[in-house]
């Protein structure tokens, strides 16, 4: 074993590589006192055609609309109607109810995998309401709220999760990696990041086709480290693509806190500044702030002014997935201490404060949505859960190419002949 000159083992005293450390670990009390949240109203709302160079401060502040008491304020207040906000609340509650049911379905052995978006419902739901079905989302696995807000059939989602005979993706994908073109929801990849720059290409095609549709792409804090993130910001800036480049900073990437992705040196929104793109930092647990920021970015994009980077600051309230146990790497109960609260509770509080909603209405809605999810689950389970029912095995060989070549034909025959 041939050692390079300066490195015989005894010469290596192992200095300290600076590895960022989170502010709490199992056994510690949840403590977010190191975080600063600028007050509601502190972020200015520039005209959409203002030069990005003039608005860099937005990458370091925080766009907020709802304050701790549930009152809306500041330049970013989208002033939504009670009806719109009730629709939003309903979509968020339905999303959470769906997540809970499917998580339990996994625990009951009905499927192989599930991921919840608890605490982050405002993000997917608000974007689904601001954008249209002709716009295209390039989602992560944590914006199922988009499909739910757009009334994609719950039973279809469940059929996909169960890989059963009615699975719209014919059993080919891992649970939750949906595809729903008609709902503006691009086929989800199991690799993180890979679709971020595809969204830029999609958006460029809209420009090319001379329409005003846009794309909206999601990525997690951890996944900003993937190179697709770099490509997307670079290509979007160069070709002025009509795309919203969303970063969901939920503080965690499986067991790694956001500092491992570089979140301690500056904000993730600041990545946009590096490319001269407008960059907003938004309270992701504030439905109204998410709505307003999305709307602003969508206007820019539709006007041909190009891409906007938005960091949604939020907290992943539950485990990464059904394979994960967060109590192994972070203080118990951190979610309950998240200073920006829960997006559902906050919008509900706001609506109640406005006199547009009540605890009774809310309880009734919860019961109704619970029943709706249960009905859908029963319908899907009647078709079958994972392993109990599945598409014909020949589906394994379809859609590899537009038409199967001789290899696939022969292999299919071999399988079907068995």
């Amino acid at each position, binding site marked *: 074993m041939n050692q390079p000159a300066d490195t015989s083992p005894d010469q290596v005293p192992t200095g300290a590589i600076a590895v960022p450390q989170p502010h709490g670990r199992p056994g510690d009390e949840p403590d977010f006192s190191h975080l600063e949240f600028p007050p509601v109203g502190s972020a200015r709302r520039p005209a959409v055609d203002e030069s990005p160079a003039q608005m860099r401060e937005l990458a370091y502040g925080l766009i907020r609309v709802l304050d701790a008491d549930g009152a809306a304020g500041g330049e970013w207040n989208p002033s939504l109607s009670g009806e719109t906000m009730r629709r939003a609340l309903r979509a968020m509650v339905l999303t959470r109810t769906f997540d809970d049911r499917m998580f339990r379905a996994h625990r009951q052995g009905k499927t192989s995998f599930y991921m919840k978006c608890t605490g982050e419902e405002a993000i997917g739901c608000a974007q689904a309401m601001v954008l249209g079905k002709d716009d*295209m989302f*390039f989602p992560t696995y944590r914006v199922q709220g988009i499909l739910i807000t757009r009334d994609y059939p719950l039973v279809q989602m469940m059929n996909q999760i169960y890989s059963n005979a009615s699975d*719209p*993706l*014919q059993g*080919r*994908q891992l649970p939750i*990696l949906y*595809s*729903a*073109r008609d709902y503006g929801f*691009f*086929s989800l*990849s199991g*690799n993180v990041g*890979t*679709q*971020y*720059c*595809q*969204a*830029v*290409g*999609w*958006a*460029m*095609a*809209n420009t*090319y*086709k001379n329409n005003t549709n846009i*794309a909206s792409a999601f990525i997690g804090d951890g996944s900003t480290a993937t*190179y*697709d993130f*770099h*490509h*997307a910001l*670079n*290509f979007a800036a*160069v070709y002025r693509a009509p795309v919203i480049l969303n970063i969901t900073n939920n503080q965690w990437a499986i067991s790694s806190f956001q500092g491992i992705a570089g979140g301690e040196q500056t904000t993730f929104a600041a990545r946009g500044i590096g490319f001269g793109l407008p960059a907003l930092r938004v309270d992701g647990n504030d439905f109204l702030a998410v709505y307003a920021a999305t709307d602003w970015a969508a206007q820019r994009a539709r006007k041909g002014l190009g891409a906007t980077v938005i960091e949604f600051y939020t907290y992943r309230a539950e485990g990464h997935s059904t394979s994960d146990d967060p109590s192994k790497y972070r203080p118990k109960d951190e979610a309950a201490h998240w200073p920006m609260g829960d997006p559902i509770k906050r919008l509900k509080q706001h609506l109640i404060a406005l006199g547009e909603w009540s605890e009774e209405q809310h309880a009734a809605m919860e019961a109704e949505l619970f029943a709706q999810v249960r009905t859908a689950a029963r319908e899907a389970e009647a078709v079958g859960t994972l392993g109990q029912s599945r598409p014909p095995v020949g589906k394994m060989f379809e*859609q*590899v*190419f*537009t038409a199967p*070549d*001789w*290899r696939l034909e022969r292999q299919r025959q071999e399988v079907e002949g068995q």
Partner: protein
Amino acid sequence: MSTMNMIQALNSAMDVMMERDPTVLVFGEDAGYFGGVFRATDGLQRKYGVSRCFDAPIAEGGIVATAIGMGANGLRPVVEIQFVDYIYPAYDQLVSEAARLRYRSNGEFSAPITVRSPYGGGIMGGQTHSQSPEAIFTHVPGLKTVIPSTPYDAKGMLISAIEDDDPVIFLEPKRIYNGPFDGHHDRPLQPWAMHPASEVPAGHYTVPLGSADIRRSGKAVTVLAYGTMVYVALAAVAESGIDAEVIDLRSLVPLDLETIEASVKKTGRCVIVHEAPQTSGFAGELIALIQQHCFYHLEAPIERVTGWDTPYPHAFEWDYFVSPARVAAALRRAVEAV
């Protein structure tokens, strides 16, 4: 009909398709104003405007990702990777995304993209302008991998690739852009104009992907080759005087197994030639298929004549590059084996 070299034929294919189909657009590093370092996209920006033929950042993965997004949204992007030696940064997008998009979305989305890239050695390009990585694409379900070896095929196959609804890796043997180089680097290059396959129709035509071309009929041994190696093989056959059947595979996936099988069953012997390193090169796959389908017809071990299992070394270009002499020796071994 006009006489074209391979670059002109490729250029004409893109021109014809951009003319016919407004969803076709072309981009890549230096592919816009300048027309590409090998000039394959020359004139396209002038003719069709910057929106349809443009320069791209030096980010092969970004180029392919952008093309996938465009392709899923109804366009037919044709992207150029300047040298295939620089395609690895796009490998993830090709393997994990382009190749699987149709499958995983059950046909809701697909990536009808064409990825053009010059490949192969013989140009004193050193380690990073000489590689032949076709095998890493042929292994991937959902990708087509094709390699033309004449101006006529280059144009007809590129049009087929662009019209194809699946992602196509379109590898261009750059050593024969200007003429059918046969490995004799010490002799003057015969220009394409002297070769019948340089007669290329001006308009639209296709050469289907998935069909091999028997470039020389023979009875003694089958030679499978593609790209520049077709000419090296033909030279070896001529020089050895062996009555070989030379098949230009043209398309590796989908593969024309029928033509291969028929030939090997006839000759009972086979030599496979490629530029890529031997280990896990595409010859392995061909041998596996041939011995499966023609086992009882084989009279001699199938020979592989390939690049060495080393990086491509600048000073040893002509020791690394497969020569007619090495192919001829393999032909002799194949026909002499009993």
